[in-house]
């Protein structure tokens, strides 16, 4: 730690480079790509959402705001479900990810790197193959379902409405578990980097000042890990709310998420204006939700 101080001082005294030509040349290709293939398509999506017509005769921009009213009135429940699933899955990844991140950061000793590799390694197997594996794990005749039935957990899940018969697959429960599984590493890695930097002497100091276990966590550990919590929850919530792989493979007709609707409206029904309106609503909702969340969490530095 002591060595970090002079180098930080050196960085501050070093002249920040100014000028315009060099950075512009360096930035040009990336900027061009982002403008042509991100900004322009977003405008194109917004324009598409206000058009009328059909795929054979072409579309005309008629400022048809009715597309948005249609999108919301027909699919509000899929929107609500997507954000609900994403919120539950985010909280789930946080609860599961925290002990794992702490374990890797402070209790794993020389196995630290190996454990980090094991957290990331599943990514190298295609996520669709891994999601299909949940069909095998949660199957009716499998040991997991047997365990849930023996302990009465199936009754509990049914009572809270997460499953609707005595099995686990093709239910809210299966979709949410799939989302938690798929996005858990996105939570663990930022949590790890925050928790690893946490000075354990602060926790000891809290103990010396008679803080109990809960206060040590809530007053010392949690606030210091907040940057990791914020980036982890964003990295989980944003992709989870747009995901539809889990709801398609592990769910039923009652678990349809908004991404699934956008996909089928674009690629099967070919109702481009409605699909574009749905897509645009999803994007705006996420920006509003994330903006409010980041403001509430009080961290502006995200990138």
């Amino acid at each position: 730690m002591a060595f970090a101080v002079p180098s930080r001082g050196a960085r501050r005294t070093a002249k920040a480079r100014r000028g315009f030509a060099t950075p512009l040349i360096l930035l040009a290709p990336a900027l061009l790509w982002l403008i042509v293939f991100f900004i322009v398509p977003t405008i194109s999506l917004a324009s598409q959402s206000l058009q009328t017509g059909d795929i054979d005769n072409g579309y005309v921009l008629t400022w048809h705001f009715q597309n948005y009213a249609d999108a919301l009135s027909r699919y509000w429940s899929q929107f609500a479900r997507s954000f609900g699933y994403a919120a539950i899955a985010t909280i789930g990844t946080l609860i599961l990810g925290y002990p794992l991140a702490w374990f890797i950061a402070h209790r794993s000793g020389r196995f630290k790197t190996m454990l980090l590799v094991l957290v990331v390694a599943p990514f190298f197997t295609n996520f669709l193959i891994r999601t299909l594996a949940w069909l095998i794990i949660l199957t009716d005749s499998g040991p997991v379902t047997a365990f849930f039935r023996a302990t009465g957990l199936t009754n509990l899940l049914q009572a809270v409405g997460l499953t609707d018969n005595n099995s686990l697959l093709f239910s809210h429960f299966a979709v949410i578990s799939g989302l938690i599984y798929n996005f858990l590493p996105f939570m663990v890695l930022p949590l790890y980097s925050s928790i690893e930097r946490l000075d354990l002497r602060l926790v000891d100091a809290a103990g010396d000042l008679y803080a109990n276990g809960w206060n040590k966590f809530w007053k010392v550990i949690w606030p210091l890990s907040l940057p990791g919590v914020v980036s982890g929850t964003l990295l989980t919530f944003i992709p989870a709310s747009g995901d539809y792989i889990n709801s398609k493979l592990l769910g039923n007709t009652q678990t349809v998420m908004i991404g699934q609707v956008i996909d089928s409206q674009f690629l099967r029904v070919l109702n481009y204006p409605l699909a574009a309106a749905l897509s645009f609503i999803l994007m705006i909702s996420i920006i509003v939700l994330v903006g409010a969340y980041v403001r509430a969490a009080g961290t502006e530095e995200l990138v």
Partner: protein
Amino acid sequence: MAWLRRNVVVILGLLVLGYILLPNIVVMVFSFNKPTGRYNYEWNHFSLDAWLDPCGSPGMCEALGLSIWVAVVASLVSTVIGTMAAFALGRYRFRGRASTNLLVFLPMATPEVVMGSSLLTLFVAMGMQSGQTTILIAHILFTLSFVVTTVKARVASLDPALEQAAADLYATPSQAFWKVTFPLVAPGIGAGALLAFALSFDDYIVTNFNAGATTVTFPMYVWGAAQRGTPVQINVIGTVMFLGAVGIVGIAQAIGARKRKAD
């Protein structure tokens, strides 16, 4: 009881790690299965058939080849232009820097289904045929921000005194860059490239919007298989990728440890 209290975080951590790894273990076990029907979801009996004939499932190895090719090209392009941008953002102060940072961040905050569909509307509006080109454009786009962010973090953590020291020792600016700065940033560039490759190789949602009917990547092949019947070979590929990744990192670790010891 005291032991349990002390080690509860270790036990919980290991359980969660088990949850993360369980599907990979299932994929591995079922790569040795001989299923009775079209779907490889129920254990029948042990067999090496799929391992001995990995390309036995029609179209799968072509899809795999396409995915590798796309991932290599996309990660190369996004690593080069992303690294350039990262140097600009990490080392220079200029007007518009904050908005450029925001523009780099936005694609990462956009759900894949929105990005895929907005690119689709652009390609439709331009009358562009879906295929390998549109896949590549999309993959370079969504990997680019991750490269910039990864490399930028490395560039920002550099000590400028090192480059000044090189200049004091009569290095030309280009010598100072290639002999001092670049080697220090290289691990960040490598991490960014690896991340870009993995993201591109694994992508289904964005690709599905921009691939057209005849261009099938490996994830699209798996998706199709989930609807029609899952060949055991996809488990073989999944297992090889998983063990390969763990193995490569393991070897790199071992070499690094030996090097440190030698120093």
